[in-house]
């Protein structure tokens, strides 16, 4: 299974429409929850059937495409495994993120589409993650496009599917202990 192609075959949800803003608000609120380390709030934004992936990327020749691995994933998660991660963070021994790094998620370049399934919304957005650890003044900056499917559940949108398309080959980071 590969990343959802650029969604040009889908119907574009007009920017500025109610659905557009629901998506933007969702992603902006989500970023705030993560940056504020409100992990339970984040968990509550996930759909029970969430499929969350970040494929490994390698440098290929132009003719070979964007270089995303067919089988390799940095993250390949469901709600079960994500909640393990979050529970782990809540212990006193999750060293990679305790003390927590200082993160800031800049979410831009929103494009919203109607999914095949009526009511579901696909959002493409760009994510710049700024991250600082301990007393190291050199920030760790990571970049990705995200392709998300959002679905209504109990009166609010939930994250149903996420592909994090990182702009990274060799990772410039000692750990991937944060969420994208």
């Amino acid at each position: 299974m590969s990343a959802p192609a650029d969604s040009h075959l889908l119907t574009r949800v007009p920017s500025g429409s109610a659905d557009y803003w629901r998506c933007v608000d969702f992603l902006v609120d989500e970023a705030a929850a993560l940056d504020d380390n409100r992990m339970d709030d984040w968990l509550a934004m996930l759909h029970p059937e969430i499929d969350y992936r970040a494929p490994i990327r390698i440098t290929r020749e132009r003719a070979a495409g964007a270089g995303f691995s067919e089988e390799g994933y940095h993250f390949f998660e469901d709600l079960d495994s994500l909640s393990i991660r979050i529970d782990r963070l809540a212990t006193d021994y999750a060293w990679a993120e305790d003390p927590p790094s200082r993160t800031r998620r800049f979410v831009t370049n929103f494009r919203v589409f109607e999914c095949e399934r009526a009511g579901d919304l696909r959002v493409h957005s760009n994510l710049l993650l700024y991250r600082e650890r301990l007393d190291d003044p050199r920030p760790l900056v990571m970049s990705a496009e995200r392709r998300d499917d959002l679905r209504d559940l109990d009166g609010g949108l939930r994250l149903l599917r996420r592909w994090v398309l990182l702009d990274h080959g060799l990772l410039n980071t000692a750990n991937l202990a944060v969420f994208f």
Partner: protein
Amino acid sequence: MQPHPTPMAQFLDEFDASLLEGSVPLRVFNDPEILDGELERIFTRAWVFIGHESEIPARGDYVQRRIGRDPFVLVRSDDGEVRVLFDACRHRGAMVCRAERGNAALFRCPYHGWTYKNTGEFAGAPFFRAAYGSELDKSEWGLYAAPHTEILHGFVFASLDPDAPTLEEYLGDMKWYLDLLWGQCKDGWEVIGDPQRFVVEADWKSGADNFCGDDYHTFYLHRSTIEIGVMDGVKRGDSTENLQGYHVQAGNGHAISHFLVPPEVPGPRFWGYPPEVAERFTPDKLGQERYELAKHSIGSVGTVFPNFSFLAFPLRHSRKEGPVSTMVIRCFQPRGPAEMEIWAWVICPKGTPEEYRRKTYRTSMGTFSAGGTFEQDDSEPWIAQARTAGTAYGRKLGMELNYKMGLKGAASATRVDDFAGPGVAFYPVLEDGVHRGFHRRWVQFMREGGYPSAMTPEQQNASAGEARSNGDG
């Protein structure tokens, strides 16, 4: 004024002697001079892991790899041979391989177009005759290849030293254990996906040393993961009950920590593989005795000197399902003082059913990867080690690290003779001998002179072994 007043040879003598006392100088984890020595004396001499045959199944398939910091191409040539080519054009030294993975009959250098077959042989150059006439002997201008390349169960190793022994000699008794792990599956093993690579600001030895068998750290560094129940059968608290395993010094600096289930535990284990995968294992390859051992094996972690490591344990990345076997391999590549690059692969027996193949991959990456619930914590102390190793005060104190566990006296780890495999074995795993052995071999490699002679498991264990026989073992 000199940051390292000790000449290197004297430093190595002192280090070797201090190992008998279970001491390792902190400084080796962050020192530019030592790194230069390692690049020159270890990484261009030792046998190092390059990749797995399954990464380049077809002729012309190649992947970019590193030996130390140097760029190489692992390629299956058109003649079917697997080769490790030095990625430096013989003309002006540009790199001829541009992608990290691909298939190519020819490597063409972008600078002036010198072209090499995927065997490394010189194939041609623009205007060749007009430019070089008859003076240039094409047979002399192929890409440099690693002088030695050998494959063991699909795992490709290379050495850059013409004087290196065979891989088998180099591995010593460690071969027996690699056979145990990877020599018994009907169709061998394969890599899933592409390797994950990440940079850690720590010394490469922090990783290699840890994987020699630092079971001691599991219970504290990975306590968050254990608390939430990721590692089955491991209990919290001050109990040795969880440490029922063997530490083996396998000679030549190699070491493995191996865990068995007690004979009374029902059912075959094969590192946690379920029946549909375990059936890939067969006694036909190495005989019934080794097959039985595999059947009772529940976990393994080890390092082939200098920087190739592996780990296999049944783990959970789910609350709903039981433990899933994981099998990961690692290269800890130096990048600079206090900087390494970790390469991480997930492997499984060839023929593993698709569903379990995905399950073992997800569990392996979910626990042992840059983002894994286990491994994401490992780099924290390694980075800190490099930092303290770089201190002026550490140098002033001549600070020595404590590698004394199991060295002498009344500690619980005891040399045992009843372990099924070769090498010097201890039980249980509460001992640092596997780490001391790594560093003894390191000292040997760092010395000036010819290729290091073989180091028997007894020699590797010298200090600890002697000490134990004086103690009550």
